């Protein structure tokens, strides 16, 4: 008789190790009212800035004797669509309080350090404020099975999007080549988003959840042509496809 049962895997589960990218919140004060106010000021107008992202609370900047109301902090953060899962740093008392509130200890969670920028000879003028996130720019062709998501921004693709590929953006999508895959603009509900391409042959186009497949052929005046797609009438509305009028370059030499 063979004794092969010892190593038999359970049928209902399997334990595997996994990694997760986290957002880190460096907590500089235990004053939750102040924190709530500043969070509201910073992100209040962007209710969808976070998308239920897991978060680690970094207690390192906090004075060791500060008492944090973790239950209230978790509730506050959850209201901003982030999900605190762990703390790192802090005094033993603070860590104990965090654990009491159901948070894990994650000492290994290291914030990403930006890679050092090569030193330039000419001093570069520092930008006055953090530059707004520009469009996500893709230079390479997107082939079947590949997917790009421009989160919270526009997407510009300089090469073809092949059948079976997906381009998704929270803002608008520009494709300066044939668009033959799926294009999903306004993925988080922005009804003002548009899809622009030099050659419209998509499998599917969608703006703010209003979609159209190519099952029914697209109108001949836009199929395979430079086209703009926009949403008319909000989420209950319909997609409007218009041929792009590419204006000729202005004649040179005019006064």
């Amino acid at each position: 008789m063979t004794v092969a049962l010892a190593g038999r895997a359970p049928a209902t589960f399997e334990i595997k190790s996994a990694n997760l990218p986290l957002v880190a919140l460096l907590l500089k004060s235990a004053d939750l009212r102040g924190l709530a106010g500043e969070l509201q000021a910073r992100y209040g107008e962007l209710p969808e800035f976070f998308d239920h992202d897991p978060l680690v609370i970094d207690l390192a900047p906090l004075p060791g004797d500060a008492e944090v109301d973790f239950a209230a902090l978790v509730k506050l953060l959850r209201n901003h669509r982030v999900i605190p899962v762990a703390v790192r740093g802090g005094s033993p008392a603070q860590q104990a309080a965090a654990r009491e509130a159901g948070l894990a200890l994650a000492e290994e969670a290291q914030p990403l350090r930006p890679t050092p920028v090569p030193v330039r000879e000419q001093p570069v003028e520092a930008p006055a404020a953090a530059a707004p996130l520009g469009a996500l720019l893709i230079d390479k062709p997107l082939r079947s099975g590949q997917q790009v998501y421009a989160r919270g921004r526009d997407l510009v693709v300089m090469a073809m999007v092949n059948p079976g590929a997906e381009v998704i953006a929270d803002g608008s999508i520009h494709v300066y080549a044939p668009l033959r895959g799926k294009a999903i603009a306004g993925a988080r509900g922005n009804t003002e988003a548009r899809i622009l391409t030099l050659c419209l042959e998509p499998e599917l186009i969608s703006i703010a959840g209003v979609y159209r497949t190519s099952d029914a052929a697209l109108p001949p005046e836009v199929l395979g042509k430079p086209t703009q797609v926009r949403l008319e009438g909000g989420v209950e509305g319909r997609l409007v496809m218009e041929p792009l009028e590419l204006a000729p370059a202005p004649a040179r030499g005019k006064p």
Partner: protein
Amino acid sequence: MARIIVVTSGKGGVGKTTTSASFASGLALAGHRTVVIDFDVGLRNLDLIMGCERRVVYDFVNVIQGEATLNQALIKDKNCENLSVLAASQTRDKEALNKDGVERVLKELAEMGFEYIVCDSPAGIETGALMAMHFADEALVVTNPEVSSVRDSDRILGMLSSKTRRAIEGKEPIKEHLLITRYNPNRVDQGQMLSLEDIQDILRIPLIGVVPESETVLQASNQGMPAVHLKGTDVSEAYKDVVDRFLGNDKPMRFVDPQKQGFLKRLFGSR
């Protein structure tokens, strides 16, 4: 330095193994020391196409797992002196392949003085296919003139440019070649097949050759003889052109224009 070439497609049944056998044989006939490896562990076929199935004692998996040396496992081809075959195991599955083992075998083959290492990829996009492409310097993407094959090739091209060692280490990308097999210009004319232009419009990589649809291929595989050896046939000529172009010689594309059928042939059928 040995060049590693993966013959891949995503889709099954398009002619990867046929191509691997004829391409490797062609390189050997041109005087280059070549080895062809079957990565299709569990569904090995290359040895049949090469006609060496009765001489397989040790295989690729045995070498990876240290149960045999490369010298024991390499089978000398009966047609070309410069060609060796490394067969796949029929009793194992793809999980028997691992990156370290494959890398070690490829390195050892290079040290043995092989100039070209041709990796015959299995179909699909799982471990076997990933292992076959991982260390490649160049890729022959085998495509049939039909939409599903073209889409699968497109997927494979995406993986070649993102999942392979050259892509991960940010080195010069894998050199990609498009090889269209089972092409029938007359059926393209009748709208039954995609044309060369249709395929290239989607895939957009350089075309290295077109192998015409032919009964010769079936005949060759049943005989256990790579099609390139069947002298005077279209398929043999087409594969020789492919090897020539691969080695840097300029050759005009053949077998791409429809042939007018004569009156008698039309009357009595084309067979």
